[in-house]
């Protein structure tokens, strides 16, 4: 099947999740004898575009930023749907993120396509089209059958290994002939999140819970994160208490993340917390209570007082990194 991906970029650079998506799309297209097309908006440098070819994209449709300056999901959806039609795609893929969540379901309606978010692997079968995803906030898997000819899917974070599949990649300008309604809204303020490593993209995440006792105690956690180049996260009560910013709250009612390595420090492991982190490749738990439920989900655990354990652990990691 022909596959169209939306290759979003941050100021002209494709993130790891887009390269994962391209690798996944290549595997899917390959399985069914099709090729991968990517819609790219704006104007990334040629060297960045070449990257997509390295990961299996055979054709790039380059299009001006839809809908002007502010992100307008309606305009994006119209562009993506029309690119799907132009490229004859029967599978339209997105990587996970706030843009995709706002655009992909609309594309599905436009194309009268079945929609699945949180896809974690290749389809189990193509005819009929059946694919697995995680449901009940990570407590089970469900198999979705899609009956429409076109499918729209969002690939879950960190669920597919990046793999190089170099192909010849052509670039075409693409200007869809569609009427996009005026945005009808105004962005009056933008607060950029700068500096810190973005939680959703981080390979390593250091997270703290109520076990840290107060908002003043986070230095030991920040030092651990610093030694690992990790992003920071926290449990919900920590954000509710204002010990840490809300953007760091992970779990069922916070962010859902899937890093390679997740450190849960002073976190009991409530099921709603686990829902946000259960797709992490390796979970390390540090908790003074040997009965804490977090140990049922962790691969490695230390039973002990985090105020004693963390500084020593940070030293050990620093030592390793300096070797």
């Amino acid at each position, binding site marked *: 099947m022909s596959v169209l991906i939306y290759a979003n970029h941050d100021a002209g650079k494709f993130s790891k999740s887009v390269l994962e998506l391209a690798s996944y799309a290549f595997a899917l297209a390959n399985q069914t004898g099709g090729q991968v097309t990517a819609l790219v908006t704006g104007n990334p440098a040629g060297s960045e575009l070449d990257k997509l070819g390295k990961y299996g994209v055979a054709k790039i449709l380059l299009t001006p930023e839809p809908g002007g300056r*502010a992100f307008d*999901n*309606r305009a994006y959806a119209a562009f993506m749907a029309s690119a799907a039609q132009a490229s004859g795609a029967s599978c339209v893929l997105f990587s996970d*993120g*706030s843009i995709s*969540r*706002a655009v*992909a*379901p*609309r594309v599905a*309606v436009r194309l009268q*396509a*079945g*929609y699945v978010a949180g896809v974690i692997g290749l389809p189990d079968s193509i005819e009929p089209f059946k694919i*697995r995803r*995680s*449901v*009940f906030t990570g407590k*089970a898997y*469900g*198999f*979705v*059958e899609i*009956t*429409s000819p076109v499918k729209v899917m*969002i690939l879950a974070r960190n669920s597919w290994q990046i793999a190089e599949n170099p192909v010849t990649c052509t670039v075409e300008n693409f200007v869809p002939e569609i009427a996009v309604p005026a945005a*009808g*809204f105004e*962005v*009056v*303020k*933008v607060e*950029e*999140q700068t500096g810190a490593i*973005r939680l959703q993209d981080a390979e390593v995440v250091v997270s703290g819970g109520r076990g840290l006792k107060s908002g003043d105690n986070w230095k030991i956690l920040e030092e651990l994160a610093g030694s690992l180049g990790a992003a920071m996260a926290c449990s919900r009560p920590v954000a*509710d208490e204002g010990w840490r910013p*809300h*953007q760091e*709250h992970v779990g069922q*009612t916070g962010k859902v993340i899937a890093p*390679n*390595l997740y450190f849960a420090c002073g976190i009991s492991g409530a*099921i*709603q917390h686990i829902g946000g982190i259960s797709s992490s*490749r*390796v979970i*390390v738990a540090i908790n003074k209570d040997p009965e804490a439920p977090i140990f*049922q*989900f962790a*691969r*490695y*655990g*230390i*039973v*002990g*007082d985090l105020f*004693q*354990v963390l500084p020593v*652990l940070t030293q*050990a990691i620093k030592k390793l990194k300096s070797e």
Partner: protein
Amino acid sequence: MKILVCMSVVPDTTTQIRFKPDMNSMETTGIQWIINPWDELALTRALEIREQPDSVVTQVSVVHIGLKDADPVIQKALAVGADSAYRVNVAAAGAMEVACQLSEVVKKEHFDLVITGHDSADYNGSAVGEMLAELLDWTSFSSISSFSAARDSITIEREMDSRTETIIAHPPCVLTIQKGIAKDPRIPSLRGIMGARSKPLLQLEPIPCTGTSAYVKFENPAPRSKCRMIDPANPEELVELLRNEANVL
């Protein structure tokens, strides 16, 4: 301004999910059903706004697409302050069907603002809000963490992956909310519970809608391997294992 809060009804978030022996559907006996946590927060915020002095919000209603067994949960929404409730009497198989039924209610009852949650805690579809907006051909905003209403505009905060935007928009529109919108959900008072009985809970018949996807099977996750315990006096061992056994450092 008339606000409609879309509400899915899900198993309590602490429920241990089990499936029928054929693994084709969830075992529902013994399950405690609740308002989807996001929708509960959306309702809380909508009510806060309606209760402000000189509020432009004249009505806050809830809607659920589903069968009669959801009525006790819908009653709770009325008990915490929703003015009225609608239930479209159909067991919808997928997001597209739900959105299609919702669009009919929105059009018929002339709502100006529709609020949906980030996802349903059951199948985590993350689909209905944006599908509904597309079916209605309305503007929509997702990842909304703050919301207030003025005469003919609303002010919202939208969390994009690396920035927060403050936006002024004009109804009609659909908002999909995420965390931050309200702090704690309301707990119904005895008076609220009594009062809810006299509020309208209208049962509507479905319109024809076709679905494009359905769950056909479920699987329990593989049992996790046992946690390997490390001596707290020897974190070096952990570092060693993370590098050489797990290959993540």
